């Protein structure tokens, strides 16, 4: 009988090892839409980690990894707006709050919320981002679309190009997390 208890303890401990999901090729894109012009950028180099036991969730990326259609725009984005030399990273650090409703053993799509701190351009803000966790083939795909305002992160837009850059930028996250 005490062996049985031991085995149960071991079985409980085992998933602790299999709870880390991560990626280094996460896709993050953003879209700024104005009547004058639409600006789109994409990075396929976001790193993310999800602890399926505790719900701890971290995304980190280098701002310089965003690619633009126009190279000059990419340079201006890094030099003038994000000041990527001074603030190289964009980071989300927080929790998936309703992970208990996600059955990792079962394929499916689960609406969740990520609550935490979003840091970019040296400014940290508390955010709650609604998204989805899609479980399939043992991988978890985390997706979300949310609005970020440049002004909230002290990203200055000069009056000359104010009509070209939206006040609300739509950010899309797509992370295919593999079990570690």
């Amino acid at each position: 009988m005490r062996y049985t208890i031991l085995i149960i303890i071991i079985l409980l401990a085992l998933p602790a090892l299999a709870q880390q999901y991560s990626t280094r090729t996460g896709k993050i894109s953003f879209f700024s839409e104005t009547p004058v012009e639409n600006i789109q950028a994409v990075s396929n180099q976001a790193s993310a980690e999800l602890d399926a036991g505790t719900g701890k969730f971290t995304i980190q990326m280098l701002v310089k990894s965003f690619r633009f259609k126009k190279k000059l725009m990419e340079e201006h984005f890094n030099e003038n707006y994000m000041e990527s030399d001074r603030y190289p990273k964009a980071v989300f650090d927080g929790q998936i709050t309703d992970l208990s409703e996600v059955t990792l053993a079962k394929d499916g799509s689960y609406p969740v919320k990520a609550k935490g701190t979003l840091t970019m351009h040296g400014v940290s803000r508390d955010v709650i981002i609604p998204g989805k966790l899609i479980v399939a083939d043992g991988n978890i795909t985390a997706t979300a679309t949310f609005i970020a305002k440049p002004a909230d992160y002290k990203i200055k837009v000069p009056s000359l190009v104010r009509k070209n850059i939206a006040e609300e930028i739509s950010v899309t996250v797509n992370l295919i997390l593999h079990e570690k």
Partner: protein
Amino acid sequence: MKNNDARVSHTITMQYTIKLLMLVSLLLPPAAYVSAQISDGGEDIAETLEAQRDYTTATFKTTRLINGHSIENTAAGVLDFKISHRFGRIDGGLQEWFGLDGATIRLGLDYGVTDWLTVGIGRSSFQKEYDGYLKAKILRQTDDNHMPLSLTYLGAMSVTSIPAPALPAGQEWHFSNRLFYVNQLLIARKFNQWLSVQLMPVHVHYNLVDTRAEPNDVLAMGIGGRVKISNRVTFNAEYYYQLPGNQLNGTVNSLSFGFDIETGGHVFQLHFTNSTGMTERTFVGQTIDQWNNGGMHFGFNISRVFTIVTPKEFR
């Protein structure tokens, strides 16, 4: 699995298995702990990001410092249309509208074949000169200082198309008389956000010079740099020192100061210089006006870029 255990738990094999499992269970907690540690600090993520931080970008705002090249290349698939003017002498006064009445002009197209190779062509009004160049990155400075410098080779050639001079009978005017060749190394370092410095040794070959005493090869050392005034404005300086004994008669060194001003899709370069030519053979080796007697000229370069090949992320 637990059902199975209950059924066979008294067999010797199972006891052995259980002992093994107990042993494993001793190892488990530290393993789980280690993995939790990594995820807490996000350290392995940070390391991945460090590994991504590689080449230093935006050492200069555009591919020209003032008259000469900077180590910046035109990005792959991008066409850069350059319109450059150098006006007349400022001491021309009101009569010449301080030089603005007359200008030498160069129109050029630069194209980024790859991120390390740019090719360009241009046409200058001075002596109706056509020029072509290629510019290749050899070394690229990295953010972690593993490579402290950027090194670029520039090779250029140009040909004038003014009518041949009237020559005494029996003398022939060769096409090769019109040709010039340039070899240059650009060595640059972006020290920090606001300061970039560049050295540019250059060799210019003149197929034909005015007198027998003059050298066909002019050697010069260029030095220049930029100081960032704001995110969109830099102050630039550029000086080409001709090595003694290797210069054409009556020429002086080229000295220029200017500002790069960037607005959306354009970079405006406004400057003062004692050179009126915009090809290496003219400003390095054939500058004749002097700063100290009013021989300075206002000039500008305007760059407008067009994306020809869409980056693969957007196809």
